[in-house]
């Protein structure tokens, strides 16, 4: 299996994540698109780890998962707080931060 296939798969997943972050207005869906991008990067790192037979990349993927878990905890707390203030998860409502 050439490494190019894995590069193109990760690229496709990453670009779908970017499209999702640009297309949607729901803050939670944007968040999920960011998770998709993180997973695309993880997959590519694992493929390179297998190619070079080096386990450091898999440790790196592990740390990316750690950071993603912490990020989701704080980010969802922010979204819940925003919903409590403005009763919506529409990011267009948040364009004026002073209100």
């Amino acid at each position, binding site marked *: 299996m050439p490494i190019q*296939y894995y590069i193109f798969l990760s690229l496709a997943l990453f670009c779908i994540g970017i*499209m999702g972050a640009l297309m949607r207005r729901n803050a939670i869906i944007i968040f999920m698109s960011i998770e998709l991008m993180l997973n695309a990067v993880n997959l590519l790192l694992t493929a*390179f780890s297998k190619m070079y037979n080096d386990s450091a990349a898999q440790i790196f993927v592990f740390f990316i998962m750690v950071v993603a878990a912490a990020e989701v905890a704080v980010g969802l707390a922010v979204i819940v707080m925003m919903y409590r203030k403005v009763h919506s998860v529409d990011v267009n409502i948040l364009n004026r931060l002073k209100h």
Partner: protein
Amino acid sequence: MDILQLLFWLLTIMAIGCALGVVLSRNPVTSVIFLILTFFAISGHYLLLNAQFLAIVNIIVYAGAIMVLFLFVIMLMNLNADTEPQKSWLVQLAGVISGGTLFLVLIAAIRNAHLLGVINKESSDIGLIKNLGTVLFKQFVLPFEISSVLFLSAMIGAIVIGKKDTE
């Protein structure tokens, strides 16, 4: 075409199709279900790459913990397809065009690169928990300890942010 290639294409089609489902579906709950399926497909890819530990961690952490958190928040807010805010079709078209352009530019850049690597078929054991644990606790012990501080601060931060204002 042997069984590994067949599994590769099956999991690839599943991952990309479910990722498109995340972006395109109207209902946020459906998006979460599609994202869980995408994570399972990516875990299958990890298994094909002999990264057994990462496959299990991906299922437990992502599909188990993080997605349940998402689903819980969505059900807490009672979001469904009727309350879903929609961007105008012009903005959506701009999003698709910019994402697709990035995809094309990166493919054109990588297609001619001299990446001669091939994922070798013989199984390696670097992805097993024993070997990864040895590396983690010998070479990467400082980042590992720092990540515990990160988790503690994330936990405290989530509680402080989510706390109701009492004044």
